Structure formats: C-alpha cells, structure tokens
C-alpha cells in the first residue's frame, strides 16, 4: 500500500465515520437537552403553551426541554435567536405574527420565513371575541353593523398595536362588513379593556379569557367570535362567519406553533412533529390549554405550512389596505 492509497483509505474511513455518526446522531435524537426559544415573556400565552408542550416532551423523549424567554419585537427576536442555535436541538415557540406579518411590518428583518424556517407543528389556536361596553346601544352583530353604518368614522375600536392580530382582525371585519371605524392603538388587552369599561372607545376584538370574565360580571357585551365554529370556551357566542350578512369564510385566529431552522434535519423535525402531536392529544394538555383560552391543535407539518401560507395572504392584503407595509 503506497502513501496515496493509505491517505485515500483514511479519508474514506473518515467519511464513513462521519456518515455513521450523522445517522447515529439522528437515530439517538435527542441525546442532549432540547431548547425552546420563546419570543414572549414568562407567563404569556406562548410561554405557558410552550411549557405545557415541553413538559409532555420531556416525559416522552427522556431529555430535558429548556425554555428560554427572548421577548421583543413582537416575537421576531425569539425566531432570530433560535436561528443562532444548533438546528437539531434549538426550536422556536412563536405565533402567527413573526410567521406571517412581521416580514411586512419590520424593515431589515433578519430572517425569511420561506428560506430560513421550517414549520414543525401547530400547537394551539385562539379566536378573538368582538366586545362592547354593556351600556352600548347595539345588542347583536346585526345591530352593531347597522349602528356603525349610521355613524361612519365615529365608532372607535381598540387594538393591542398597529399590525397586531386584534387590529388586523377588526380591519378584516370592517372591510367585509363595509364599515368605516377609527382605530385607537393600545399596548395590551388590559389597556383596551380599561378603555372600553371607561367608555372611551366603543369596541374591540379581544382575547377570550379576559373578555369572558368581564362579560360574566356584566361589564361587557359580546357580539360574536372570529373562529369558524363556536369555541368550547364560550359555546353560546355565535361565530361571525355567516351571520348578519358576513361572508361564510370569515375566519381570524391567533395561533402558536413550533418552528425549526431550515437547516434542521428532516428526520428530527418529523420526529418532533409526531411527539408534539401526541402531547397535544392528551386530555390533560387539552384541558390545561383551554383553561388559559387556547384550543390544542397538532397536525402535520404541512397543516402548519398551509396555515402560514393562507394567513400570510389574508393578513398581507389587510396590511396593504391599511397602508402598513414597510417592506
């Protein structure tokens, strides 16, 4: 054996070894702790949902799942931070915002949803509820639409910020119903609630848990829900879709999902998807998520990819009409 052959042999061995360890690494996955980067603060819905999933995964995979909160820029910072980590062990728990609207709202966003990210699994969805002060004139959706049409430009609605889910949902609703309402942005649902209770603004699409508590106390009126079907949280609240002349396909939901870097090995993403889906099928997870206002989902990677594509289109149009597109 001459020197060149020897070198070739070593190289071949090295290549073979690399393949072997690569395959083994994926077979043994996870052989080290998994990191979930949550782009929202501790105690927020994505954080709580992420922790519920992490708890189930730890049990099933036998490895710790570490939650890291990296809040900021509406969740975009969490996605950026995830991309800095090991693609096989670092995933982001994020929401519809960074996956659909952030690329249009934030100039110089450091990631491209299609090129840099891979959907893993849809974790949960939450509808929004259209609310008014309990002393407001209209009693139902039909009356509200009529009332708004009689007072074009005078009806004010609150949201949790320009380009937020509650803002875009109301714009989508107003567009479909042919209404002209004035947008008053706030920073949180608490501020919006306070403003409606003080009769400073007229209406808002709000997260179910807080709105239902005020409704039960007789402080708020509830006109409709933005999901296609009634929510198990509020079975009596009718969907807006197909009511009061609204289109049958009216649907606006917030969602929370797990996403990976585009460099994450497909086998690992497949496995994580299956495991998350299994966690989300447990009655305990379903009940716990519902108690904080969210419906457990699950499904395939493709289901999440479809949702990202569809919502990017829907919200993109709304943003375009509202003149908010920055990119």
């Amino acid at each position: 054996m001459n020197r060149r052959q020897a070198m070739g042999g070593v190289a071949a061995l090295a290549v073979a070894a690399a393949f072997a360890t690569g395959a083994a690494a994926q077979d043994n996955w996870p052989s080290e702790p998994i990191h979930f980067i949550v782009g929202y603060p501790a105690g927020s819905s994505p954080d709580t949902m992420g922790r519920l999933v992490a708890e189930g995964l730890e049990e099933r995979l036998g490895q710790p799942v570490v939650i890291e909160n990296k809040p900021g820029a509406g969740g975009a910072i969490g996605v950026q931070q995830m991309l800095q980590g090991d693609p096989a062990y670092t995933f982001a728990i994020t929401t519809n915002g960074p996956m659909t609207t952030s690329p249009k709202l934030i100039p110089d966003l450091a990631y491209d949803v299609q090129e840099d990210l891979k959907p893993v699994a849809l974790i949960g969805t939450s509808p929004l509820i259209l609310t008014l002060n309990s002393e407001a004139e209209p009693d139902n959706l039909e009356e509200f639409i009529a009332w708004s049409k009689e007072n074009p430009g005078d009806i004010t609605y609150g949201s949790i910020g320009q380009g937020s889910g509650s803002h875009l949902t109301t714009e989508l609703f107003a567009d479909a119903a042919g209404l002209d309402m004035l947008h008053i942005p706030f920073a949180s649902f608490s501020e919006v609630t306070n403003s409606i209770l003080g009769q400073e603004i007229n209406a808002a699409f709000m997260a179910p848990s807080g709105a239902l508590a005020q409704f039960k106390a007789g402080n708020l009126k509830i006109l409709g829900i933005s999901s296609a079907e009634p929510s198990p949280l509020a079975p009596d609240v009718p969907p807006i879709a197909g009511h009061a002349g609204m289109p049958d396909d009216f649907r606006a939901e917030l969602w929370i999902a797990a996403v990976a870097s585009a460099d994450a090995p497909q086998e690992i993403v497949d496995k994580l998807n299956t495991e998350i889906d299994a966690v989300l099928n447990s009655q305990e997870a379903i009940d716990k998520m519902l108690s904080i206002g969210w419906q457990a989902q699950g499904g395939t990677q493709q289901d999440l990819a479809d949702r990202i594509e569809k919502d990017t289109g829907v919200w993109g149009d709304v943003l375009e009409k509202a003149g908010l597109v920055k990119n």
Partner: protein
Amino acid sequence: MNTFEGLLYGLSVATQPTVLFYCFVGVFLGTFIGVLPGVGALAAISLLLPVTYYIQPEAALVMLAGVYYGAQYGGSIAAILLRLPGTPQSAVTAIEGYPLARQGRAGLALFSAMSGSFIGSMLGILILVLFAPLLAKIGTKFGAAEYASMMLLGLVAASTVGATSPAKSMAMVVVGMILGCIGTDVNSGAMRFTFGQTALLDGVNLVALAMGLFGISEVISNIRGSDERKLREKVGLREMLKERRELRRIIFPAIRGTGLGAFFGALPGTGGVIATFISYATERKVTRTPERFGNGAVEGVAGPEAANNSGAITAFIPTLTLGIPGDVVMALMLGAMIIHGIQPGPLMLVERPEMFWGLIASFGIGNLFLLVLNLPLIGIWVALLRIPFSLLYPAIVVFVCIGVYSVRGSTFDVYSVVVIGAAGYALSLMKFNPALLLLGFVLGPLIETNLRRALLLSRGDLLVFFERPISAGFMAAIIALILWGLFTSIRSRRGGSAPASVTESGD
C-alpha cells in the same frame, strides 16, 4: 361577607403553615433580589413561575406576591449604600440616601427607608381593604386625556428635583424624553431611531438605563477616587435610636408618600417611578429647611420609599378587582393566577374569596416578616461597605450585567449598559442629575402616547384636556404650580436673597 369577615377569613388562609412558609420564602427572596442591582421582581417571578406549577395556588401566589413587594424593600439598600438602585423606583432613594451613607450615617438612611417602606406597605394594605372598589372605579374613569394631563403634572412637579440650575434639570428631562422616543411608535407603528436594530424595536431597556446611569457611572467615578469612606464601627439598633430627632422627621413624609403611592399605584399603567419622584418633590416643597435636601435629608428617603411600597400594594387593586394589570410585573402576576385556574377580575371576590382575602392578609404578614427580617440585617448591609473597592466594584459590574441580561435575555442590553454608563459618568462630571433623565425617559413616552390618543379620540380638539373634569383638575394644578414657582422666584429676587442652592445628588 363583609370586609372584616373577609379579612378574618383571609388570615385563616394566610396562616396555614404551608402558605406561611411560602410567604416567608417569597419576601426573603424578594429582599435579596431587590438588593441585587437590576435583578428585579420581574426576572425573579419569571424564574419562579414554572416552579409554582407544583404547589397549591394560594401558597404559590402568596410567594410570588411576596417576591414583588419584598423586592421594593431590598431595592433601596444598594441605592443608599452604593448609589446603585436595585430597582428603577429606588433611584430617587439614592438622591438623599447616598449622601447620608457617605457621611457615615448609612444606618440612619437604611432605617428611614425600612420604616418608610413598612409604614407605606401597612397603610397601603389598609387603603386596599377599605377603598379597593372606589379606587378601581376611579381607574376606569381615567382615559387618555386624564393620563396625559396627569403625567404632565408629574413632570412639572418633579422638575424641581435636586439640581443646581433649572436649565440643567430641564435639559436632563428633555434628553430622557428623547431617549424614550426610541422604538416602535404605538400610534403609527413606525420605527424611530432604531437604526435597523431589531433589539431597539421595544426601545432602550429601562433597567439598562437605570443601571448604567447610576451603577456603572458610579463605579467609573470611584476608579479615580481614593478608597476613603467614613464608617462607623457599629451600626446596630441602639446606634440608630440615638438619632431620635431625625426619626421624628420620618412619620409625616411617610404618610404623605403613602397617599401618593397608593393613588398612583392603583392607576393602571403609571408605575411606581412617578409616585416616588412626586413624593420627593412634595417633601422638598413642604419642608422648612430645603437646604438640607441633596445633602442627606431623611424625609427624601422615607417619603419616596413609603410611596414606592404603598404603590406596590395598591397596584394589586386593578389587577384583582378588574383583571387589569398596571405594569409588566402585575401582568405576570395575572398570568400566574390564570395558570393556577384563578381568573382575577370583577368576579374574583365571589368565585375565589379564599384567594382574594388570603392574598391581602398575606401582605400584612409578609410585611411583618420583612420588618423582622430587615432590621437586624441593616448592620450586615452596612458591613458591605467595608469590602475593599477592588473586590466590591468588579462584583457590582458582574451583578449589573447579570441583572440587565435577566430582564429579557438580551446581550444587546448588556452592551448598552456599558455605553449608558460612560455617558452617565460624563453627565455626573458636568453636574447633571441623572435621576431627571430617568424621569423623562419614563414619563415622555407615556405623555406622548396618551396625548396623541386623546387627540385621536377628540378628532384633534385640544379642549378635551379642559372639558373632562379630572383632566381639567390636573391642568388647574399645573397652572397653579407654575404660577407659584414664578411668584416665589420673583419674591426671592426682590428680597435680594439668592435662591437656596442645592448640591447635586451623589457627590
């Protein structure tokens, strides 16, 4: 169930051994976390929240609340000893507390802070029990116009805080307001002065600003100075009681501070920083000896500390009775309650009386714990000052970095604290007061957002600030303050006496 029965019921919940134990753990952790610069209640509660999933809800929430108000106690300790506010609210405490410590009267300063904190908390609990529904109702009456004029009043009232020249004070407030403009504009969604940095979309981090302006700049200025400090050999209870004459000065400032803190605390979204500044400004206005301010006036420690702590208690009012948290920490508390299956809000008193009254009763118990815990510790804290600078200051820098990082896990914030620290040192060389920069930074964005929101709602009609009764009241107070200021300055000029000069806080 009436209030008295409710409280008794609450005591029966809060004195269960487990709940009592977690209450102690909470206030104990809170005190220590408050002492650490930058590591605030927010970071501590975030870390503890997942742990509480496994303990009973009453104990869990009592502990988390204990961390929150316990941290307010601890926050003043490093502010007084090292001019290193543990929480942004305690930046005001440093104005008078630090000069006292430099004069070798750290024990007195700490004692003033502790008693102010205790009085503020206990009266705050009383206010919470007696007036919660009323204060909650006033809270919903506050719209954008009311907030805008109230903040403006805060700015006018506090702009007199410790400075040699009004122009320098004004400059600091304005710089603070400009820094507050950085980030995403709430009204338009536009990105202002972010230079393409995603990390700046939510603005400059308040904790990074406070730690840089106070902590790091103090470390830098001490590198130059020599290691000479006046220290008493012993700081025990007996030594502190020798200063009885000073102690008598504490009571009324603490009561005034409590009232201010209770009011601002109960309004969602105003925060403790404003209450402490206004309390400080009030004490300077009502005192007969304003020349002592800036050189270590105990009123300027006790008042703001009482305001800070009573505000921390009444901040629970909108959260518990309306389900509307006033700040990020309260939002986290609300999240914690929801995770434990409790929906705070108008129905909480009916649905979960054990939680509502148990929590309130635990505040009282927790504050007693804090008093018992902290009085003996004063001596130990003062002993911190005996650590040589060469060990103490590197340790401070490490803690500041950890603290700033803990707020939102951002290395950008850690770098920014370095830059802010250097700027803060330059400002202190030129005798500017960084506390006013902090005030402008907190108030500026609040004024802007509410002013623009009020004008959006009134379709651009400026009269809205005078037509709504509460807002009109604030406007009248602003005009009165300005006229009074003009009147006193004219009178003192005619009298030929120079206006009382007040030295800078710090050095």
